[in-house]
């Protein structure tokens, strides 16, 4: 039990107080937390992050955040932005939604992404295609090669089956409910949670159609770098892969570093790798021709 109400603290009083019985004490208590460092948090401004990506000028940094196990993050990014995801400890699972930031009813289409590129597996040089025949982002670097375009996000029911519960307010959040919170903050809702891709946790498809999960854990520090080809909203959830066979909730922090970069040039090798991709870039350039 606290006793007497305090006098208003002197301006700039450095002492830590545990008195929160009045606004002055509560304010001092709150402000004393400033500067606390935890494993999973954003760094603002992002150029004050501990280790900037090699060759990136501090003023070009856009986003530096470590997303908690079971957590989520999202950001609007401009054309040309690079986003490097790092699986810091080998057990991150980056479930990804991508929207056209100007017109979010255009979004990643996973079926078109694999069908148009004639391949089931994501990797370096592959494009993330929208449902409007355009390329939202491309994979410019892939040090992981274990990704998944087929199994999608965990949900409350699947997490409840595996871990006993799966709610946002509990210890086992599911990717779908993380997406729901993330997209709500852009004015989007349940209908906007489109089929997703999972980075760092992979699947292979056997000749009989069987889905074989490859969920690690993997070596720490694997990276994937995406390049924004349109103005995008990138949404990330970091929850255990839905087909992870391990009985316990295993997921480790996901690092995000993003920085400004040039819009993809006409002679870019990824842009020109396939005729389908060339036309996807033509469609992007047509969209921005205003």
């Amino acid at each position, binding site marked *: 039990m606290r006793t007497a109400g305090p006098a208003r603290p002197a301006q700039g009083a450095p002492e830590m107080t545990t008195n929160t019985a009045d606004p002055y004490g509560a304010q001092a208590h709150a402000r004393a937390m400033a500067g606390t460092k935890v494993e999973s948090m954003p760094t603002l401004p992002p150029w004050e992050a501990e280790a900037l990506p090699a060759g990136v000028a501090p003023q070009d940094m856009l986003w530096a955040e470590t997303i908690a196990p079971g957590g989520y993050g999202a950001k609007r990014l401009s054309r040309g932005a690079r986003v490097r995801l790092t699986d810091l400890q080998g057990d991150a699972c980056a479930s990804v939604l991508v929207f056209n930031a100007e017109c979010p009813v255009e979004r990643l289409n996973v*079926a078109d992404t694999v069908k148009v590129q004639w391949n089931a597996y994501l990797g370096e040089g592959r494009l993330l295609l929208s449902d409007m025949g355009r390329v939202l982002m491309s994979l410019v670097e892939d040090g992981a090669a274990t990704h998944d375009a*087929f199994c*999608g996000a965990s949900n409350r029911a699947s997490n409840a089956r595996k871990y006993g519960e799966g709610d946002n307010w509990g210890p086992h959040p599911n990717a779908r409910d993380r997406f729901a919170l993330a997209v709500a903050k852009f004015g989007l809702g349940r209908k906007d949670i*489109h089929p997703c891709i999972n980075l760092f946790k992979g699947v292979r498809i056997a000749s009989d159609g069987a889905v074989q999960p490859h969920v690690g854990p993997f070596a720490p520090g694997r990276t994937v770098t995406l390049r924004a080809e349109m103005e995008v909203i990138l949404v990330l959830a970091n929850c255990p892969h839905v087909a992870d066979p391990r009985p316990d909730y295993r997921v480790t922090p996901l690092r995000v570093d993003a920085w400004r970069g040039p819009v993809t040039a006409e002679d870019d090798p990824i842009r020109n790798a396939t005729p389908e991709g060339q036309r996807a870039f033509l469609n992007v350039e047509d969209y921005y021709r205003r």
Partner: protein
Amino acid sequence: MTDAALAGLPPRIVLDEVVPARAPWDHLVRRGEVLRIVDLEGNQAVDFLMYSAADDAERYSAQDTIAAQGNIFLKTGSVLLSNEGNPMATVLGTSVAYHDTIGGACSCESNTLRYGHHTKSQHACVENFLQANGRHGRGKRDMVSNINWFMNVPVEADGALGIVDGISAPGLYVDIRAEMDLVAVVSNCPQINNPCNGFDPTPVRMIIAA
């Protein structure tokens, strides 16, 4: 009456109609009812989505279905799950070995990537879905990865994937039993640039029995 296409269905026929080549279709299927789709002339892709009649933000999820059954192919016994993990329907039986749910729906826009900009004005499944869903207040946000009954999309060892010659034939069918009240929405695929319809879109028959 001895209509072979009705064999094995529950006795009460709620609906029996033919969807013309290239056309959209939608209908309520109540819990316990069986929807039979008959591939009348063979190798006609039937693009298919489902929405919970009670809450259309809950809809078919190809990814949840694949993850839960551990296989990309839909066969007899496949349970078709919603985006919230609930069973929407069960593949009660089919005379085709397997059906696709990874190939998605053709669109005017994706056709420009796959075949060239000369195909932009051709009719496409997304146009059908938008038209059918539009009558019920649904729109583009309601487009998700669909089922393609009677369509063949194998995945090779190196990941190569594509719509290839079909494995269906005239008169083959699939029976889907609704596990909740649902709205089934179909595009009888108008694609003419790949073998999903044998390069010749044809009618299909929809029968709902209870």
